[in-house]
């Protein structure tokens, strides 16, 4: 028989080994799932992981990788700070929407004026919108002791309804022939978040995400704020002893992660998305939660996890086309990744020993 034995210290090897193991296990079990559905598992796995990078149409897919990974990484970096402090912002999707609405609002109000300050103003408005939306669960938590998981999650649905209202009402394109949705910001030069290097997918949001990775690393390892976050997450009473104000920390974490989600929203709507429609959000805010944990809440880990997750998104689409997999199977595949990661996490804190059978 086997039994689990707690390690005296968490294993460094397995801290970084489990994500790899989780990816491999996801491939195997996912492959079995695809086979059970009557599809060729090897072909499907290849379509997801290989074709977008090195397949015949890779030149189209590679820029898409950055376009998809950018918002995931940006949001996940913000979430990871709160998660380390045991402050659970599950509502990044809502903050992403509100950020996009606030930034797009600035652009649509300025239309058709051309001014180099419009885009920066949109970015600030987007961050502010996400920040304030994230602050709502923080204030309710501090003031009334509500659970920020529930409040932030429910605010996603509020934000979705606001989005829908805006797309059909105040932000509707007056020259849009009655179709819902705003003007296309891609056709408004002062507001367009164009690619910095054409054809690479590298827009300002991707650069911001990369900057957030570096900044997050510095903050986490060199700054008192990162230290306080780690203390608060591991020992709340010790955090008070260290002079950390838990209310302030909750507000900073929820507001800060909201601001980054809002940034992701404004870069998306002014760039790849182009316009406010009621189908604007595609779940980046939720997938970023998986990315944050897959990356071990570590900035560079999140960078890699964000790229991997983007790959499964794009690869999932190719698999739908090439192999004919249903979208639900791809979502199950992505969910498996988090499931296996959490399951294998056991190995970080425990080791498996063979039990001697005693007479």
């Amino acid at each position, binding site marked *: 028989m086997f039994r689990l034995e707690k390690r*005296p*210290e*968490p294993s460094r090897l397995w801290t970084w080994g489990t994500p790899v193991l989780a990816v491999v296990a996801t491939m195997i079990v996912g492959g079995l799932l695809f086979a059970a559905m009557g599809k060729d598992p090897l072909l499907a796995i290849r379509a997801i992981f290989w074709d977008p990078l090195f397949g015949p149409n890779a030149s189209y897919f590679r820029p898409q990788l950055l376009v998809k990974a950018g918002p995931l990484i940006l949001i996940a970096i913000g979430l990871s700070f709160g998660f380390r402090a045991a402050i659970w912002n599950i509502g990044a999707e809502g903050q992403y929407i509100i950020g996009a609405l606030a930034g797009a609002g600035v652009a649509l109000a300025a239309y058709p004026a051309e001014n180099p300050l419009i885009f920066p103003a949109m970015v600030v408005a987007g961050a502010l919108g996400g920040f304030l939306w994230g602050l709502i669960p923080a204030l309710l938590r501090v003031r009334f002791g509500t659970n920020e998981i529930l409040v932030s999650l429910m605010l996603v649905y509020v934000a979705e309804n606001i989005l829908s209202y805006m797309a059909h009402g105040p932000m509707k394109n007056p020259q849009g022939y009655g179709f819902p949705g705003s003007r296309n910001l891609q056709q408004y030069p002062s507001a367009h978040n164009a690619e910095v290097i054409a054809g690479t997918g590298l827009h300002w949001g991707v650069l911001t995400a990369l900057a957030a990775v570096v900044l997050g690393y510095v903050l986490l390892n*060199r*700054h*008192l*704020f990162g*230290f306080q976050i*780690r*203390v608060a997450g*591991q*020992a709340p*009473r*010790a955090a*008070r*002893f*260290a*002079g950390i*104000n838990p209310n302030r920390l909750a507000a900073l974490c929820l507001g800060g992660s909201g601001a980054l989600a809002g940034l992701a929203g404004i870069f998306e709507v002014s760039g790849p998305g182009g316009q406010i429609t009621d189908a604007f959000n595609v779940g980046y805010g939720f997938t970023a939660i998986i990315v944050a944990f897959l990356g071990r809440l570590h900035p560079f880990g999140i960078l890699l996890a964000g790229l991997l997750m983007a790959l499964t998104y794009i690869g999932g689409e190719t698999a739908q086309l090439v192999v004919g997999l249903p979208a639900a199977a791809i979502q199950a595949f992505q969910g498996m990744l988090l499931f296996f990661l959490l399951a294998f996490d056991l190995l970080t804190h425990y080791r498996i020993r063979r039990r001697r059978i005693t007479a």
Partner: protein
Amino acid sequence: MTDLLRIEGISKSYPGVKANDDVSFTIGAGRIHALLGENGAGKSTLVKMIYGLVRPDNGRMEMRGAPYQPSEPRAARGMGVAMVFQHFSLFNALSVAENVALGMDNPPAMRDLARRIREVSEGYGLPLDPTRIVGDLSAGERQRIEILRCLLQDPKLLIMDEPTSVLTPQEVMILFGTLRQLAAEGTSILYISHKLEEIRSLCGDATILRHGKVVGSCNPRATSARAMAELMVGATLRAPARGASTPGKAALEVSDLTLPATHPFGTTLRGINMTVRQGEVFGIGGVAGNGQDELLLALSGEVRSAAGAVRVLGKPVGDRDVNSRRRAGLVTAPEERLGHAAVPEMSLTENALLSGAVRKGLARRGFIDWNAAQGWAAEIIAAFDVRTRGTATPAGALSGGNLQKFVIGREILQKPAVIIVNQPTWGVDAAAAAFIRQALLDLAAEGAAVVVISQDIDEILEIADSFAALNEGRLSPPRPVAGLTLDQIGLMLGGAHGTQPAEPDALHSAHLASEQEDPHVPT
């Protein structure tokens, strides 16, 4: 009176400590027998042996004349011994009946069990609805479940470990009614406590333990609380290890500090007044749960009060946060090492930064100087002889004594004007305890004001200049330790509020009186 349980010459040693040393006593059938002693006196070890959780090294036990050697709690239960622990082991999400069933060796069908719970609980004046979810119950009601678990097994001996520490006064009255009824029906009760007045009202016999030995037995109804406190604390008064110093100006002034309890089992601090001078060691004694934790949090700044309630070197800091108070010169070492004074998963360097960042200047504009932090951790390790592999070791990997040396050293080496320590040597081996006490004395000699909150009266008498007792959130007026008698300590700990300091001559003569032989100490 027939004997139910005889204990003869029981001893039990753990590495470095003799928890029980040649303990003998007898519990009569249908008697409520008190087991008295300070923390660490060996009460818990003794009852664990009776309940089969620990095996004695030497000695024998007899149940109704037959040898009694339980190898596990199940065997003890089979012999009619049941125990209600201080800490409940209940599942909040399950109902009362389900929790009771989980604790039984052979649970009956749920419907029968629910009926039995109703019958027994009402029969003993402890009404309980078997279908309620435990998470919704009060501490008193949860304790009833634990007691019911025992009563359903029809015990001959019921062991209760500090049962009233979580109860309201009304719940205590109900509990005592139940215990008296049980005793009248012939069940013996072994009642562990250090609350003297409770024992006087409830128990017919008492055995007193100190440092693992039986130091006396008495009839609590005919013995004063003071006399029992003397037996608990020890008959010898140790002189402070250093000569009288000349105290400087007031370093810590607490005036009329009143704070409501922050959680349901917390203690309200009521009008605390104290002044600690430079060079003075101020000891605060008292039984756990009388406001020690709350007082430390109020002084450290983790809980804030009115500005003028706490002053450091004359500066009001009562409304300031932890780090402002550190800047003003006040540092603290909380009782709970892991999780409060230190983060278990974090390295010693990170833990050194935890409270030292402000006074040691380990961060500039919020950016941490890790080299300086590591040097500071290494300094603590060297100066306080912390046995560890290095500064990268997680705090949780250190032994209790070594971590306590690190925690106390971290505060002392900041050269504070005021230091407040709560239970500085709790669970620490004798050598480390002596080291920590000496370090506190040395810091006082350099001119710091030192406040030691401790349940260990011996410790306070050894190092403190002044002594005050904390009782139900009130602090007694302080008295000089020199010339303080055990009578007076007993009265102060027992909560005799408003006693005026006696004249020095009177103190001296009372001290002499207490050194006369006590009639209750067995020869």
